[in-house]
């Protein structure tokens, strides 16, 4: 057992961690991809993926209450030592890839709209630097710092969305069935991997007080993240329409550029840059911390801090690995979609199956003994 000490976290921390991890990709290309797949029914795609996340997250938390410790401890008890490492490595790679891809994609976006004269390497370096510092502070500070930023995020988003209302055309959502309800349901289930951040509650289970806190975190975190994405995607569709939205690389930025209050009071899109940075920095920091936690847990280390420089070098080199901005998008939408999808379905389902198998075995034993 690792001697790594976890700080105590509450309901708000849990919610914030899930919300940040689930909405961070929304500011990137995934919203465009959702519109490509489901046309006017993109909100339904997010609804399905949220419901799937909710079911899997709650199921995982529900079986976790029968064990002491975290996801890895439960895996060890149910499946044995080798699965402890398989699942540990799998989720560590998941959060590492999250960290790398988010670093590169947020850097590319920032380079597009803010840092136009600076080499992308410098922007990535800055992101990695902040990631290292945030990881040093720890998950508790990241979570509690994040909820102080929540009012800014809510205010900025609401402000932009309200200004967009005059551009709404409800017919943009038609044909009402999008690319077909059946198809969109399947796409929604397939894209639930984008919410794999919900697993964080199971990974950090010992930090949370009790089962209720963990279950509520999963419930409210998934619902808030899902509602945020559904509201934003519906606004994009109503204001911009399916055809144009499919071409956008930074949809939320372009949506904000349409907000117009007065000829002396405009250019609100720059506010969205702050929004990305807040969400991006927190998500990257949390992903980095969880990666290191899982590594420390597997290697039975008592502290993650010595690993921070190593992780920073790995993230920096892998983030600069992609040749251009489009190849990282292809990588994210291709390989990572499958990888994240597996993390949401395969391992939780194996764990559920094994848990109920063991439970049934015990029941049979009891009955035969009687």
């Amino acid at each position, binding site marked *: 057992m690792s001697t790594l000490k976890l700080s105590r976290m509450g309901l708000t921390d849990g919610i914030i961690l899930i919300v940040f991890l689930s909405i961070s990709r929304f500011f990137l290309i995934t919203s465009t991809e959702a519109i490509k797949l489901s*046309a*006017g029914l993109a909100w339904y795609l997010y609804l399905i993926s949220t419901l799937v996340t909710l079911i899997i997250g709650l199921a995982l938390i529900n079986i976790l209450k029968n064990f002491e410790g975290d996801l890895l401890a439960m895996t060890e008890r149910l499946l044995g030592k080798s699965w402890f490492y398989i699942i540990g490595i799998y989720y560590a790679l998941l959060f590492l890839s999250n960290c790398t891809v988010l670093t590169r994609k947020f850097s590319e976006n*920032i380079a*597009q*709209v*803010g*840092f*136009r*004269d*600076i080499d992308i390497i410098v*922007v990535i370096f*800055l*992101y990695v630097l*902040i990631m290292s*510092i*945030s990881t040093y*502070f720890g998950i508790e*500070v*990241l979570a*509690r*710092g994040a909820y*102080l*930023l929540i009012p800014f995020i809510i205010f900025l988003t609401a402000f932009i969305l309200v200004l967009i209302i005059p551009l709404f*055309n409800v*017919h*943009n959502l*038609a*044909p*009402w*069935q*999008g*690319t*077909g309800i059946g198809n969109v349901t399947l796409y929604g289930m397939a894209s639930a991997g984008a919410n794999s951040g919900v697993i964080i509650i199971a990974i950090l289970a010992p930090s949370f007080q009790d089962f209720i806190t963990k279950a509520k975190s999963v419930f409210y975190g998934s619902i808030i993240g899902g509602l945020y994405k559904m509201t934003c995607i519906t606004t994009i569709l109503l204001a*911009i*329409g*399916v*055809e*144009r939205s499919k*071409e956008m690389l930074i949809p939320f930025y*372009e949506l904000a*550029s*349409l907000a*117009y209050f007065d*000829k002396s009071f*405009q*250019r609100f899109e*720059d506010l969205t*840059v*702050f929004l990305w*940075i*807040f969400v991006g*920095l*927190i998500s990257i920091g949390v992903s980095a911390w969880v990666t290191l936690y899982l590594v420390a847990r597997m290697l039975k280390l008592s502290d993650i801090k010595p690993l921070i420089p190593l992780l920073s070098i790995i993230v920096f080199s892998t983030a600069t690995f992609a040749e251009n901005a489009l190849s990282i998008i292809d990588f994210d939408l291709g390989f990572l979609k499958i990888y994240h999808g597996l993390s949401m379905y395969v391992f939780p389902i194996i764990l559920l199956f094994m848990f109920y198998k063991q439970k049934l075995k015990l029941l049979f034993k009891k009955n035969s003994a009687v």
Partner: protein
Amino acid sequence: MKRISKCNIFIKLIFIFMILFFAFTLSGCNSDYDITELIHIAIIGVDKGEDGKPIITYQIANIKSAPGIADNEENKEPKLNIITFRGNTFSDTLDALSSILPRMPSFAHVKAIIFSKEFAEDGIYSVISPVLRHADFRGNAYIIVVNNGTAEEFIKQNNPTFEYLPYRYIESQATLSKYSRYYSKATIYEFYNRLNSNSSSSYAILGGINKNHDLNNAHSLQEGDSYYAGEMPRRGDTNPVELLGTALFYKDKYIGKLTAEDSMIVSVIKGDFRKTSVVIPDPNEPELYVSCIVVLKRPATISVKMENDKVKINVELLLEGEAINTPSKINYDTPENRRQLEEAFTEHMTARLLKMLKKTQEIGADPIGLGYYNRANYKNYQEFAKSDWISLYKNAEITGKTVLKIRSSGLSWNKTEEKNEVDKTE
């Protein structure tokens, strides 16, 4: 214990400060330019050269002539500078512009992109596309097609009387389209959305250089064939440049135009207007005219049905008005007369509506966006993507009706009858 909690708060504060610091740094606030290091491009004009290549005119805002600085009598700075280039592409001329300017050209405040009709006929995608990919440009710049003359000429002739800066004139005019109503506000954002939508046609504001000062042959904007931009007879010390009418596109190519009167009907159907006045011949004394201030009572009722690949469109408008000017001195406040006037307005407005819709069918463009109402007729998006709205629209069966209800008589009531009495005593 207290020491630990104080330490935690300190760490959190450092963290928040760090996030905020990097939020400002990463958002590019450090690599901004001082306003004196920038040159703001206000208007871009695009013409077709003799060899078909674009001739691009940039109108540059001169910061030294800004109000406040320019109030100084000694300041003889021109309000703007106009530079014209010829290049193989639009982006080509952007480089040429950067090479001759002493400061960084900024496109963040481009108010309008103006095209000559000749260039627009060949398609404007080559200009719109780089504009949309460039983060500096904004989707709310206006699109104008010059009806008579070149874009360069239009920019040079733009000399407003009541606005200090010429590009402000275009911005103010376009913003006020819901009141001036004889053209529809057209932005790059809307143009490009419509270009891709398969549910409507792109359109632009029709601009023109007015050279017609012959008032003897003038008629009302709502009478006869109405006017296109640059053709409305007028005299006086006003801006020679005017915005009047709508330029219609098939995909990105200019294919026709709507008059001021037709453009007003388009605005009414789209719900893009606040208030307008309608003038019709007096039903009882046709040589005189009665005018009515009109507001849209409720959004247009539009239904689009598809039966065996044949589209049936029905447009219904309910307007509410106040009879404001009745020179015939007939008392239209009595219930019978008011009904007669309402019927006359209804008949007149319905005819104008159907005339405009027929014209757009003949041109082959749907500036209203009736195709958006047709999207719901498709089962799914794949089916919709295979359809071609404009060919369906050209062959559509269109019906329509405008109903006008007079709600009030303005601030006076039965005044005309009193006047009659005065006339009789005289």
